[in-house]
């Protein structure tokens, strides 16, 4: 973990030999009259990273609570390696990293990781290699309350990984971490994924999920409204961003065909448009001095927002 060059993707695995570690079929749940999940299907294969995205209230938390065994199903099936996560024995195949977990202030790092190993049915000695893998050996005898946020998150990951789970469920795992810590985190997970661990991650950092996820599932209103690789989802969106150096003022630019938004920075103007060809034709006519012109796809964030709004 000393190198700043981290790979955040697992090496390609051969398709067809994949084992399904998580299968959700037709999951339904309602809170009173409010429908939280309305027939959700979801699958995570071994070694695969699936990002679960969607606006607030989309049903992500309900679905995750169902998957980790906290919530009784009202309909549908949830299986981790074929077992019901409501059973403690099934949860031996499960590791969970939750957003900003607070630890009991009296416990030390080693005690937490050893405890996680024993709770998972492993000997106490299983903690040593994981502490080393996450560079926690030197912190092992320190109280967890004395650690930084990033260090605490590594402790939580160590507790989740010590049992070598088939499925890791990550809830906003990098919230509050700096960029380098985030890359370290995903690099470590890429190594585990290469060994077969499946990962389901919910995050608000959509572009980050585009960088690490093999597949993205977008929830909205309790339903799956989009699913595919990050590139496939982006390609669904007709919007493009036209970037250029131009003398035209903002009022004129906003009046151009299909312009949805405008921003400026580094001497460039960025126009998000739903009609890129028409915009380019007019732009080239109206500003003969136009330079630095390029056209980009919208990002995954725009695609996810678009799916959520359309649903």
């Amino acid at each position, binding site marked *: 973990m000393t190198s700043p060059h981290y790979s955040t993707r697992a090496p390609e695995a051969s398709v067809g030999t994949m084992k399904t570690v998580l299968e959700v079929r037709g999951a339904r749940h309602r809170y009173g009259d409010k429908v939280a999940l309305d027939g959700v299907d979801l699958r995570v294969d071994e070694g695969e990273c699936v990002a679960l995205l969607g606006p607030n209230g989309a049903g992500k938390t309900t679905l995750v609570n169902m998957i*980790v065994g906290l919530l009784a199903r009202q309909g549908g099936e949830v299986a981790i390696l074929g077992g019901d996560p409501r059973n403690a024995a099934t949860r031996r195949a499960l590791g969970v990293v939750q957003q900003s977990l*607070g630890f*009991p202030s009296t416990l030390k790092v080693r005690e937490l990781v050893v405890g996680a190993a024993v709770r*998972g049915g492993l000997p106490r000695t299983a903690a040593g290699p994981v502490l080393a893998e996450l560079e926690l050996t030197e912190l092992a005898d320190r109280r967890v309350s004395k650690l930084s946020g990033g260090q605490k998150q590594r402790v939580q990951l160590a507790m989740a990984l010590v049992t070598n789970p088939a499925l890791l469920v990550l809830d906003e795992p990098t919230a509050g971490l700096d960029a380098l810590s985030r890359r370290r985190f995903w690099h470590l997970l890429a190594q585990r994924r290469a060994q077969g661990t499946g990962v389901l991650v919910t995050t608000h950092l959509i572009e980050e999920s585009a960088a690490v996820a093999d597949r993205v599932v977008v929830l909205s209103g309790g339903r799956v409204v989009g699913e595919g690789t990050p590139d496939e989802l982006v390609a669904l969106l007709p919007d493009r961003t036209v970037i250029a150096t131009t003398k035209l003022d903002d009022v004129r630019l906003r009046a151009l065909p299909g312009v949805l938004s405008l921003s400026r920075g580094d001497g460039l103007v960025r126009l998000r448009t739903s009609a890129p060809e028409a915009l380019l034709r007019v732009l080239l006519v109206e500003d003969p001095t136009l330079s630095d012109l390029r056209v980009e796809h919208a990002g995954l964030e725009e695609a996810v927002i678009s799916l959520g709004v359309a649903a």
Partner: protein
Amino acid sequence: MNARIFAVELADELRGIVREPTALFFSIIMPVGFFTLFASIFGGGNPGMLATFGTFGVLGVALMNPGVRIAQDRELGWLRAKRVSAVPIGVTLAAKVAAVLPYAIGVLLAMTAAAGLTGSLTASPVQVARLIAVLLLGALPFALLGLAVGFQAGSNAAVAILNAILMPMSVLSGLWMPLAILPAFFGTVAPFLPTYHLAAIATAQLAGGPVVGHALVLLGMTVVTGALAAVSYRHARP
């Protein structure tokens, strides 16, 4: 398998006691101080006083500690971490209740020592051992009640709620002052309170008296508070 997990859970709980000893003040020193003060006022020669104050001291930790600790764990997200782990939740909760034992034994031994030092100890070692045994066993329904509150309330609210349960019940049951010297109203209300029945069983170990009827009341309370704790757990926010 579950025995190993229970050992780890209990060790975590006990580390909390050893590494944050300030809790010992409220759990042991305060009730022992009360006992010494009241014994000097009302006469320590009364053997029932060690039993009634012992009941108060044990209930102080049995009712408060598991309930407040579970409320703290919920606030931290630590209970959620346990619930999604491979640990059966019953093992976690059993460890929280078992962690009361060092406090409870500590408070009873300290009270016995205080009685001895002030010359008011009339109980034999066997009687004291029996007193400790029945109070530890009889504290279970109160620990379950504490858990029921801890699954729903925040840690500060849990402290307030559990104190609001413990203190009036202690006074009305004659745990601080003998019912014989209190207004008749107290004697009328006391038999309706579980604390009274536990104190009666405890007193019987030192001064004799019936226990079966009181034990049945506590057994019934155990069933009720156990069911209450289970319902409260099921409705606790994940």
